[in-house]
């Protein structure tokens, strides 16, 4: 990346604008899609198809009164949303949008910056972004905010481990840690010789590293605090979690950070597992598909597909309980990632062409045996057995006993005025009225 400074500035501003527009679009998109899934129209008043709804909401939030609690720690209270937003935007700097293009007579890549270990920048940004959440909760000076912040931070840190392990397998397979280079590495197909027929599969890592892809997608939803893992700000259970005391623009910036994180994580997943900006069909179909500005279409198409996936999850799945969520993270995702990483290492060493044939068979076969043994001996749940004798205690479970004495309704005890009694229709008489007649 040897761009002149003006080009870097233009790229930086463009990345910022694209992110903000994508956030505005995503909020509208989410509300519309969820509305369609729930058979209602959704926002359709402001602008064509209600497209300007999120802009209007954002302006409304910005002009609201900015309240700061008296017990708040002033500096940290203001710094927390700034940290959250800054980290969210910085992470997007290393996402490659496309190949080298020619702008204003300059050969440049459609990527703000790239270096040897650029994927680590995204992980580092999400690690520092947790500070925004934790400090927001602490500096509010409210117990609810503090507890919400602890919940949120514990969630993000737990799922960061599974996310990191999934990313590790990509490093392992490609032996690269730069986003641009990983996209290029996926362009090479995977030649397979099945029963004499030469088939070239796409080299995208979601095929080669299918378990990592699944783990990454689950961890990514947990990492961005989205449904069904939106425990930190579960609107029907908590007020707003760590952001309870925030209002106006500061509250809006937490929202902005959440949606930018969603877009960044989708873009990272596309970059690592779905071939980045490469066209989703063989190069021979349309030779010009991966040149010039065309890859922008494929890239943003894939990112939008992921955003739809996020919305789909939200529209479909109920929220997990906190202990179920933690169990999924620590007892399923992390161990599976670790075992998969070991197996992948064994397979890669085993299938190395430098080895003797027996060595190759030993390593690859050993890894396969480990996987099969895990599948075979995985502790499964006890199958349900019918109880030997029916549960007759207290009239069965969980029904109240049949001989339960229902206490008389206090309303029935009250003497009703004649006018009220006559107002009750005879056909629709309720049990209380019966009690009255008796």
């Amino acid at each position: 990346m040897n761009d002149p400074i003006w080009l870097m500035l233009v790229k930086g501003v463009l990345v910022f604008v694209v992110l903000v527009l994508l956030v505005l679009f995503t909020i509208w998109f989410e509300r519309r899609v969820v509305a369609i899934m729930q058979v209602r129209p959704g926002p359709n008043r402001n602008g064509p198809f209600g497209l300007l709804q999120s802009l209007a909401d954002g302006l409304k939030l910005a002009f609201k009164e900015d309240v700061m609690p008296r017990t708040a720690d002033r500096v940290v209270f203001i710094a927390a949303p700034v940290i959250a937003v800054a980290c969210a935007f910085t992470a997007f700097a290393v996402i490659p949008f496309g190949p080298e293009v020619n702008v204003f007579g300059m050969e440049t890549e459609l990527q703000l910056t790239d270096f040897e270990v650029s994927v680590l920048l995204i992980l580092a940004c999400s690690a520092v972004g947790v500070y925004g959440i934790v400090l927001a909760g602490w500096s509010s000076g409210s117990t609810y905010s503090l507890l919400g912040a602890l919940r949120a931070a514990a969630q993000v840190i737990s799922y960061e481990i599974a996310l990191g392990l999934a990313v590790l397998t990509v490093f392992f397979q490609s032996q690269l840690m730069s986003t641009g280079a990983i996209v290029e590495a996926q362009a090479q197909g995977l030649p397979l010789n099945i029963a004499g027929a030469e088939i070239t599969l796409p080299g995208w890592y979601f095929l080669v590293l299918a378990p990592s892809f699944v783990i990454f997608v689950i961890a990514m939803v947990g990492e961005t605090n989205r449904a069904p893992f939106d425990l930190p700000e579960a609107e029907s259970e908590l007020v707003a979690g760590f952001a309870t005391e925030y209002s106006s623009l500061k509250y809006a910036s937490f929202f902005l950070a959440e949606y930018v994180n969603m877009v960044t994580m989708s873009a990272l997943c596309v970059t690592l597992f779905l071939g980045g900006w490469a066209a989703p069909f063989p190069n021979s179909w349309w030779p010009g598909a991966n040149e010039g500005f065309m890859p922008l279409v494929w890239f943003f198409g894939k990112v939008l597909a992921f955003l739809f996936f996020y919305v789909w999850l939200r529209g479909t799945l109920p929220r997990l309980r906190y202990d179920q969520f933690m169990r999924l993270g620590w007892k399923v995702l992390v161990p599976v990632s670790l075992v998969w990483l070991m197996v992948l290492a064994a397979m890669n060493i085993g299938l190395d062409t430098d080895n003797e044939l027996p060595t190759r068979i030993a390593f690859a076969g050993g890894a396969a045996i480990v996987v099969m043994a895990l599948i075979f001996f995985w502790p499964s749940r006890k199958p349900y057995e019918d109880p030997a004798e029916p549960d007759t205690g207290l009239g069965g479970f969980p029904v109240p006993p049949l001989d339960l004495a229902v206490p008389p309704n206090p309303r029935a005890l009250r003497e009703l005025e004649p006018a009220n009694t006559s107002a009750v229709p005879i056909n629709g008489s309720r049990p209380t009225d019966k009690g009255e007649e008796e």
Partner: protein
Amino acid sequence: MIDLAQTVAQNASMGESVFFWILAPIALGGAMGLVLARSAIHAALMLAITMMCLAVFYIMQSAPFLGFVQIMVYTGAIMMLFLFVLMLFGRDSKDSMFETLRGQRLLAVLLGIGLAALLASGLARAVSGMTIAADPRWATGAQTNVEAIAEALFSTYLFPFEVVSGVLTVAAVGALMFAHVAKKGGHRGQREHSRERFAPGNYPGPKPGPGVFATSDSTATPALRPDGSIEPASLSEYVPPRQLTAAESAPKHTEGRDA
């Protein structure tokens, strides 16, 4: 040390020195703030700032892997654990400025300066006369920064690396053992809970809060069950129940009107 510093200063590029002179005061300020901050959380945040500056220094000196790992591990994980613990202490806990031992503060300052001087002079003697090696990747034959680190970690320093990871695992498991409290009694499932709930003598519904179903909103008013009886759980055991006598509850004519 001085020779080395001069050579470094001569070899540094323009951008590197600009960033150094911006970040070095911030890093030092963070370190000073760590010592001087009264609130534990502020001290921890200052330390985080210093760590971030150090990470940027690593990146500037063509060690990007080390820099980002510094951010992820130290700033992201370890400092976050510190914050977790400190946050639970409560916000009002501040360092006391009261000197328990006489002359302790002066002595601490003197000893601190002495320690700093000792470390600085030791370091200066160790690195004086050294020359800056060429790019480290040429020395080891590795292509990239990451490869060079991997080569050092998994060949030369493999045994210490494994020992350290073993020690850390033992420490983590030990901490878990100390913090773990075994549950007393067996696990009670949904069935047991439901049985208990519907057992004779127990009210199966949720307990109403004080004032619910009552004639008044006051917390002094006992809660009534849906059947009109008083819910005993809503009566405070510390407040003695008191019934007003007829004279007490009669109107007092305080408004100057006759009844």
